[in-house]
């Protein structure tokens, strides 16, 4: 509640405060960087929080191998500009080591396998806090998660026994082997994120803007046929359409939106008019009513 600050300035102030608490209370924090808009805004806020010093966090990217090439280009360019250290965890390596088994069939995705790679990468890097761009408005289970969210030795979240979190006081105390997930933009909505990107003039990956792409339809959803990471059923016909990503995950779980949004203003207008949530386009959440909660308990993002 501020008479003078806009909601975006108030959200920004809160997120910067949280990021500085992370830097002050943890020894080896990292940012989970997916290349999506939320982790881009998060990284931007971290830059703003510590300027003129460098971001005191490494960027960790969990690479399923099923990327849009634009995501990797954007990631590498950002890392160069910030002078940040990038750590990449490869799902392919987890598969090669036999730690996870690749799903098969038409709906195969490496999305769930990422959890193992993520936990291994955090352990290898001895990271004690992983900062993520998850927002509470995204999904029912996330609406109840703390900003400083404790993970036990197995990397698991216990939703029924979370630490109380009051005012702006964050408790980062933990035992050896445990870690935290921290969500500085918990209180932002999809609209807040885009309005902030617009206000600050943050450069975004081209995937978010409408472009022509080879796509096919499955269960009422448009999916990318190029890059060709999703096995297609014989009846699934490839067509060229004008599409954009509303969220960016790996190719196998990113639904594409038919769109004519060529600028940030267009995107904001499109979101204001839309009647479907952004995760409505994510195949990974549709698996069951509590798909996200189940994945989170195991250590997912």
């Amino acid at each position, binding site marked *: 509640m501020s008479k003078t600050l806009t909601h975006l300035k108030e959200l920004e102030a*809160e997120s910067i405060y949280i990021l500085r608490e992370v830097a002050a209370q943890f020894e080896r924090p990292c940012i989970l960087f997916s290349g999506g808009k939320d982790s881009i805004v998060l990284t931007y806020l971290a830059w703003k929080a*510590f300027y*003129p010093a460098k971001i005191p966090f490494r960027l960790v990217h969990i690479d399923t191998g099923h990327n849009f090439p634009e995501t990797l280009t954007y990631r590498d360019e950002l890392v160069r500009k910030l002078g940040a250290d990038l750590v990449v965890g490869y799902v392919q390596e987890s598969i090669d080591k036999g730690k996870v088994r690749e799903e098969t069939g038409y709906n195969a995705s490496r999305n769930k396998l990422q959890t193992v790679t993520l936990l291994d990468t955090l352990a290898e890097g001895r990271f004690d806090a992983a900062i993520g761009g998850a927002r509470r408005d995204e999904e029912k289970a996330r609406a109840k998660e703390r900003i400083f969210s404790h993970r036990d030795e197995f990397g698991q979240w216990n939703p029924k026994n979370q630490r*109380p979190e009051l005012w702006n*006081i964050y*408790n980062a105390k933990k035992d050896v082997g445990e870690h935290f997930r921290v969500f500085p933009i918990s209180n932002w909505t999809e609209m807040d994120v885009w309005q902030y990107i617009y206000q600050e003039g943050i450069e975004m990956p081209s995937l978010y803007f409408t472009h022509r792409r080879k796509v096919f339809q499955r269960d009422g959803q448009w999916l990318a046929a190029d890059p060709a990471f999703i096995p297609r059923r014989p009846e699934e016909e490839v067509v060229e359409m004008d599409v954009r990503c509303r969220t960016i995950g790996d190719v196998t779980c990113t639904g594409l939106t038919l769109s004519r949004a060529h600028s940030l203003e267009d995107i904001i207008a499109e979101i204001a008019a839309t009647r479907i949530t952004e995760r409505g386009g994510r195949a990974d959440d549709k698996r069951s009513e509590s798909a996200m909660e189940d994945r989170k308990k195991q250590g997912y993002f």
Partner: protein
Amino acid sequence: MQMLRFTTAGSVDDGKSTLIGRLLYDSKSIFEDQLEAVEEASRSRGNEEVNLALLTDGLRAEREQGITIDVAYRYFATPRRKFIIADTPGHIQYTRNMVTGASTADVAVILVDARHGIMEQTIRHSFIASLLAIREVVVAVNKMDLVDFSEEVFKGIVGDYHAMIERFNLEIQHITFIPMSAKDGDNVVNRSRRIPWYDGPSLLEHLETLPFPEDPEDGTRLPVQYVIRPISSKFPDFRGYAGQLAAGKLKVGDKVRVCPGGLCSEITGLYLGDKELSEACAPQSVVVTLKDDIDISRGNVLSLDGPDIPLEDQQFDVDICWLREQPLQVGRRYTLRHATQEVTGIVKSILYKIDIDTQERRDGIDSLGMNDIARIRIKTAEPLVYDPYRKNRVMGSLVFIDDNNDTVGAAMIR
């Protein structure tokens, strides 16, 4: 656009989830796929009507048992304001969850069932709102359809409520009463045609228009979170103090005092990212540079040099809400986290425990259980820099952490 945070309080049958569902639904903040999921879930549970409560129950156990376990946060916006709702459950661990939800709220919406009027739980909710220093309370008199939209019934509840506030001496600056029927949407978002004798705003209109307090010019506080030292060729000597203003304003050229210690200096620069500001106000997060090279670190507090500086003490009284089953005991040590400070504290004595339903004070008590509220005296290993909670929420709140690293108590300094 401004931002407003509110919390909702009501017991299981007051229709609280329905109210929130209605607020989201009628303000068009629910999306088609969410509604489809709720319709599907309602059908599979054999509910005849769409159960809007399912929108807010996020965890599997909650949906299965039809109860809300934890504080959930909901978001919606209208062209006028962005809203954050802290939705707190009605029964299990009630006090603890409402205290949590109220700790970040500007407004508390307290539901009252028109058929039952002021109940013990209404007293409890209002007491917590007062304890947590919430300035604005909305008493939502719900289920008006079940009392034939009777003006008499509504007026009776308004009178009883004021009498209750006076009797228990609760401190709430503004109280607004709204008659409604959340189930049918009367006076939630849209004004009701079925309550012609009421000419006030709907709940949403009220939340959209209630005036925000003026930003105070004085009482400036900047708890230092982190010291920024780039040690780079471009910024070899830069030393900035990062923090979020807890109150007041800072300008370049202001004389500031550092607590504890009391050393003074002058502000030479204010930064937000790479932008230089000439002044900043609460709740902005900024970086401050000072003229003199003095020793300042995390936990210090900057204030304007003058009469209005924070207090410094090793012994003080707090109102505490105990959050866990493991009891608070006199003589035990806890880690206290307060603004950006962390100190060890000992519970010296429990002055009294407050019976939350009757507001009676009980003394001669040496331990507190979960959901208990009490006034206690604590002593800290080092002086704490603070303000009374009623003056400044950030500078007056603290949490207790036990040996298991768990957050076990929430306290407000008197």
